[in-house]
Each structure stands twice: as structure tokens, then as C-alpha cells.
């Protein structure tokens, strides 16, 4: 039986992209929702300290790619709901292309090597 690889750290800079994509796909979400979604999609391949999502959210807010609004969570707590802005969508498109290129390049490189 092949060894299941240990969950890896979040590669540097990819968390921002994941957050943007999540918000684009699912609409406004609070921090918990975003973290859950990323964990689900990674299917256990990613070791995410959920707390690290918050500095990332602040970074994206400062850059103007996401915005936030106060709302009430499912269990009636005050929580911030984040949504992607127009600038954020543009940025997502740019980064998605560049990410795809990087992945394709890495794939070619690694296949040739093996």
C-alpha cells in the first residue's frame, strides 16, 4: 500500500489565491467558512492552522481585493463576512493564469526528469 504523504505546509503565497477563489466560487463567507472550504478541497493534503487565515484576510483587505461586512453567524454570533471585490476578481484571473503556467511548467520539468 502506497504511503499517504503527510499533510504539507501551505506553500508561500498560495493562501491568498485560495481565499480569493473560494470567495469567488461561494460568495460572501466568514473566516470559519473559508477555512473549512479550503480544508475540504484539499482533502486532508494541507495542514492549515485555521487562524492563519486572518492575517491573509487582512492583507487582501488592505490591497482592496476583498471587502468585509458584519453579519451574524449560524450560531448567532457577530462575525465578519468577506466577499471578493471587482479588483479581487481581476487579480484572481491574473494569478490563476500565472499559477496554471507555473504548474504546467513544473509538470513538464518533473516528467522529463523522471
Amino acid at each position: 500500500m502506497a504511503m499517504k504523504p503527510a499533510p504539507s505546509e501551505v506553500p508561500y503565497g498560495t493562501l491568498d489565491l485560495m481565499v480569493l477563489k473560494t470567495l469567488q466560487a461561494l460568495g460572501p463567507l466568514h473566516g470559519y467558512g473559508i477555512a473549512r472550504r479550503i480544508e475540504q478541497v484539499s482533502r486532508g493534503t494541507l495542514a492549515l492552522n485555521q487562524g492563519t487565515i486572518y492575517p491573509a484576510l487582512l492583507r487582501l483587505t488592505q490591497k482592496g481585493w476583498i471587502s468585509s461586512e458584519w453579519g451574524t453567524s449560524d450560531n448567532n454570533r457577530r462575525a465578519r463576512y468577506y466577499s471578493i471585490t471587482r479588483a479581487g476578481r481581476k487579480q484572481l484571473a491574473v494569478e490563476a493564469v500565472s499559477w496554471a503556467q507555473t504548474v504546467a511548467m513544473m509538470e513538464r520539468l518533473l516528467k522529463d526528469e523522471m
Partner: protein
Amino acid sequence: MRLRVLLWRVLALFTARRHEADLNDDIAAHLDLLAAEYIRNGMSADDARAKARREFGGVDQMKEAYRDQRGLPLFAVLWQDLRYAARTLRRSPGFTFVAAVSLGIGIGFNTAVFAIVDAVLFSPVSTVHRSDQLADVFTTGRDGETYQTSSYPDYLDFRASSTAFRDIIAYSPSSAAVSTGGPSRFMIGEVVSGNYFQVLGVNAAAGRTLIPEDDRPGAPRAALISYRFWQREFGTRSDAVGTTIQIAGHPYTIVGVTPKEFVGSMSLLKPQIWTAMAWKSEIDDMGISEYVPSPGEGPSQLERRGWRWLFLKGRLQDGETIERARDELQAVNEQLAAQFPATNKNRRISVVRTDSVRLHPQADLAIQATSALLLAVFGLVLLVACANVTGMLLARVSGRQTEIAVRLAIGASRRRLLLQLLTESTMVALTAAAASLVPGWLLLRLGAAGAPVELPIPITLEANNIHVLGFAASISLLAGMVAGLAPALKATRLDVMPQLKGDAPARVGRLRWSLRDALVALQMAIALVFLISAALLTRSAMAAGQVDVGFHPEGVAAVSTPVGHIGYDATRATAFYNRALERVRALPGVEAAGLSWRLPLDLTNFYQEPVLIPGVHDADDKGVPVDRTMVSPDYFKVLSVPILEGRNFDAADTQNAPRVAIVNQAMAQKFWPNVSAIGKRFRLRSQDGPEYEVVGVSANYKVRTVGETSRPYFHVAAAQWGGVSWTIVAKTRGDAAALIGAIQNDLLTLEPNLVFPGNRTLESVVATALLPVRFAASSLNAAGLIAMSLAAVGLYGMIAYAVSRRTRELAVRIALGATRREILTLVMRRGLFLAAIGALVGMALAVAAARGLSILLYKVESYDPLSWSAAIVVLFAVGLLANLVPARRASRIEPMTALRRE
């Protein structure tokens, strides 16, 4: 994008509290949701909560990362340091106070000196409309100097023909006795052309400015006064306008007040009175004046093309250049040279931007040099203050080693601690600066108010003077850094473990040379340099004050009577002076009266004439320049200068008689050593020049400066010289100043048109000659006093601290039987040792300083034993005193109490 992020972060600084609360809400909601999910999956509430926390990760680390992302970390650190520093300083008020006082004195004096320098060098040249359009116009002098004054007729021609200048104004600084009813004050003003204020674009703060109508011949006498004058004499009452005041004895009506910020055209002189050119003859000018005879012109100063005394300033037309303006005026000047060769040949015109001139293009250099010297001297005082604070900080560092070790141990970086400690010393310096501004300001106010004469440069330390405040802030920051750097470096280079274990040894008795000791010794050394310099100069000033100038200035009045300027020829002048001297001699109290061309010690007249001795000098020899004057026979009696050999001039020495001269002893010695000079002959200027026979030898007296050693001087008979204008000198048994007025009134009955451009008592001439050495002595005395007090505080602090650190050791000594006296000696020895080292270094430095001062010294050698020993005695006396207080405290230590506390 980056800018946007920065802006966001800066804004977040002000809303940090709200952001923090929001983040806490976010975290709480997140943890709740996570825990709720685990409970749904069947966990117990406690387990769910714990797992949620694990899943979330470290809350505090996340918060820290979040904060770094949100705010400006550097700024936050700085703020933290500032608060920490403030707290530390509040906890040790004694240290803070002494450190702040030390630095405050240093900073305060430097700021005051800078305020003066700033007023001289950096204050606005003039607060006039568009000063960038203004240019100063100069004529070369007879001696070839570039930036000299111009005559009134030339001015009128320049003004009429220039197209590059929209208009040109003429002005000259003036001096006069001014009275608003009470006693007269000597005041500096400006005599100005009627268009002066219109061209400068200056409006009156009250009343009106002078206008061209005020400058017509026969117009009523009008004066404009400065805002300062208005404040001081009239309390800014509006009824000042219209009041009549006496200027040089004539009634002038005040027509208005200049704006507060207006400083005239020579800001350095701070003129207070402006009068129109039309009344010039009543008021003396005091700028640069040159006179060449101009045949066939009217008698008054305004009519003479050869009388150059006016400064000119023009306002350029839009688009015109300095160069065009100069070329144009130069062309006018060439026409004038053709038309009036006697007065205008070989002159050139220079035009300089007004904004680039402070006082005068040539004077500016000297002023800058003096200012730099003053700043350097008081900079040294600040250095002493810094050394003081460094010493105190070093003391604190050893007291705070445990605290610093703890902070290093729990992970504070060295850089972080360094910054922290520097913040502390800088904060002390800034506090000191703020505190020093108040006494500094008061001092300057008091000094300005208490001065017996109107200060030529009023010193203002106004809160809105951004230069001065900026300077104070910068030197405070610098002083804080300089004072704090060494202690901070030392503190952070600490071995952590022994400190924490509590067995770091407090320094014990032996003399170990530390940085603190070196600093105290250095302070002592600098203080000694100041003390020795001050002592030498004070002795010089005292010696100069008592010096025998060779003549008796007491009761001698000198009244300048330029009758040549009111149209007299030689014949009329001779008749006038014969009668004038008769009348003056008849005045009550007058003992003698005579004529003189030049006054001894007069700084404005250094006239020399080449002297050639037949048979000694060749035909092409240039001769030996010797100071020369022309006098009437009674001159020697007025000045009480004895004729030692031969005879005085007498009535027989007329134009037709052989030319005769009276030389002083120094000249006789120089040209005819070892033989009698009587009957010897010399020629002036060349071997074909006029020949003189020596008929008398007078005693030596001071000619140019008090400090000179017997300078050769010769007198020619006034009657043989044939000059027209003379200064009447008269000696009275009474008050010389009163005699001046009496002579003037008397002469006016003889010649109502007479003007008196220069009246002085001989005593005031001598006092002026002594001014430089007196000024240098008093300012160095001040610097020496401050440096000595600072050094005393430094020594006191050092010894007091050493005693407090050695309490345990001293207590043990006492307990083991050391007597009080032994303890006293033990402690004192150290302080006196430092003073001795300081004195040695200081003496070495003072050798250089004394050599530099030697040009200012009078009748005192650079190595004057009295000055040196007095300074050293003062140093040790102060050192002893600073030492005694803590030493006595040490000797009173109660061993039991002290040991129990330790």
C-alpha cells in the same frame, strides 16, 4: 497599490483598539463554529473546545502576525520605547533633573548664541515686497574697493537714466540723539530718498510712510519710527502719530510707524528712525563715506558729486537682468566721468542681488567668521554638558545591569535595547531643550532691556522663529545621542549570567580608570581652558582700562565743524576758526581749545604718509609710511601731551614760513636714533615732496589702538597745511558732553548754517577702542563660569555615585575601625586625583588656546603666571567643594544600618 496599503496601515494606527476588538470577535465566532461542528460529530463540549483551539493554532502568535500586518511595526516600537523611557525617567526624578539642567544650560546658551547668529546671518534681509527683484548698486572707491557708496548727484543721474530699473532708492544709515521728551538716546536710523517706501512696497503699520513730498526742500520735518520704538516709547498708542520728537536737536513730526517685521535696508543695524534726504544736513550718516573735492559745486552733501555716502537699491523691471542694469549704469557713469573727471574718473559700477547680501558684501565674510567662532566656543560648553550626562548615564547603567540582563535573557535583541537606551537620553535632552528655552528667552529679554545703550542687534527669541527652534531641536537630538551612545553600548555589552545570579561585584576601592573618570577629567580640562582664557582676557581688559594712553581724555570734547561743506574757502575758514577758538576759550570752564584733523584712537582714521629722509632714502625709494595729523598749537595743551624737546607750533608758523613738524619720541628714535631730532629734515611722499624741519619732539601717546607699543607719529602745523575743515578740541574742568552742546550753540551764533557731523568726547573714543577686549573678556568669563559649574556638577555626581556604590565597603571599613577622617581622605583622594589629571590635560590644551588669544592680550603674557595659577586654584577649590559633600556623607555612614540593608 503599495501606497494604498501604507495609507491603510497609517489609518489603522488611530483605530487600533477597534481593530483589536473586531479581531477578538472574529476569533471567538470562529472557535464557536468549529466547536459546534465537533459537538455535532459527537464530541463532549470540553473536548470539542480543546480540539477547536488546536485546529485554530496559536491565538497569540496569530494576533501578533495580524498586528504586524495591520500597523506599522517600527512606529509601534518607537512609541513603546518612548513610553518606557518616560516611565523610567519619572521613576528617577533626581537623575532626570540634574541631567536636564546640565544639558539645558548647554543647549540654552547655544540656542541663544545661535539666535544672535541667526539674527545676523539668516534673518530676512528685509521684509519687503518681492525682494528677488531688488538689487544693490555700488560704485568703486578711490582705493579700488568694489562695493563702495555713491553720491547724491550720481544717484539722481542713475535714477533718471536707468530703464532696466523701474526705480532706484538711496539711503544711508544715520545716527542721532533722539528724545521723546526725556533724556536723549543715541539711535540708529536711515536717511532715505522720498521714493524709498513706495519702491520697497512697505506700508505703514500706523499713520503713513514717508512719501516724495516729504523729500522736497523746505518740506516740514517728518519722521517714520520703527514698531519697536513705537512699542517702547508710546506703548503702541495711536496718538503717537502726529507727536513731535527731537532728532539731533530738531523737532520732527512722527508721520507713521513701520510694520513690525520691517527691518530697514540694513537689517543688522535695526534702524528705528527714518527721515527724508531733504533734511540730511541735520543728521549724521554713518555708513561708508568718501570725499574728493568737486570744484564748482554747492556746499551741501546733496550737491557734491565727490561726496560718496549713499547706498543704492533698485527694483528691476519684469524680465530685466542684473547684468543689463549694471551695463546701463556703467554707461551712465562713463558719461559722468567725461563730464566730471575730478570726481568720476576711474569708477566702476557693481550690481548685486539684494537677497545675496547680508550687511555688505565685504563685511559679510568677517561676520560669518566671528559667528562661527562664537558657535564653536559655546559648542564646547555643550560638549562639557554632554560629558556630564554621559557620566551620569554610565552610573545608571551599572545600577541597571540586572534589569538589562533580564531583558537580554528573555530575548530582547541588543539593537532593540540600544535604541531603547538612546531614546531615554534623547528624551532627557529634549526635555532640557524645552526647559532651557524659557530661561534663555528671559535672559535675552533682560539682557536687551538692561543694556545702557540701544543694542545695535536686538536679539529676539520668538516662538515663531523656526530656525532657532529647529536648531534647538537638532542640537538636543544630537546631544542626546552623543551623551547616550557610550553608556548604551556599554550597557548592552553585558555578560548576562553573573548579573542574574546576583554575584556581580560592585566596584571596590582601588583606582580603576573608567570612561566615567575620563569624562570627569575631560570636563575639568575644558573648564580649565576656559578659566585660563577668561583670566588672561580679564587681566588684559583691566590693564587696558588702566593703561596710560599718553594723553588725558578727561573733559576733552571734540566737535567736527566741516565749514568746507558750507562753502568756506581757506581765507574765510582761517578767520572763522580764529574767532571760533576765541569764543570757545571764553566758555565757562574751558581750559584750552585747539584744532585737530584727527583724534587719537579714532578707529576711522588711520592716515599714513610716506616719509623720506634726505641722504638715507634714494630718489626712487617709496619711503616709510608714518601716521600723520595736523594740529594747532593748543592741541598739545588740550590733550596734555608734553613737548619734551624743542618748541611747540606758534603764530609764526604760517603758510609763508618754512614748514615745521613736531614728531613723537618713537618717530625721533626710529629715524634719528641716539641723536637729537631737532633741526633734522624729512620729506613727504617723494624726494621732490614738501620738506619739513623737526622743531619739537612730543611724548609718545596711543595713536591707533590701546594695545600698540609706541607708534611713530608726526604733527604738522594746521596753519601751514591749508585745510579748510577742522575738528575743534577743547578741554573743560566740567562735563565734556555738556561742553559739546555749549560749543555747538555758540558756534551757531557765529555761523547759523554750520552742521556738526561728528561730536564725541575723547573718553568715549577711548572706551570704544577698549570695546573688543572687554567683549571678549566678558563672553569668555561667561563660558568659563558655565563650564566650571558643569564640571563641578559632573565631579559631584561621580563622587556621590561612587560613594553610594561603595556604601557596603565603606561600612565594613568603619566597622573594622577606620576613622571618619580616614574615610573622608579615602573618598576625597579619588576626586582630587581626577581634578589633578584634568588640570594637567587642561594646561596642555590651554597652551594652544593662550597662543591663539595672544592678539587680544594687552600687557599680559600668554603664560601669565597670575592668570594661570588663579584658574588652577579656582579649579581645585571647586573640585574640593564638589568632592567634600559626598565625602562627608560617606564618613557619616552608620555601619550597622548600611550593612543590614545590603
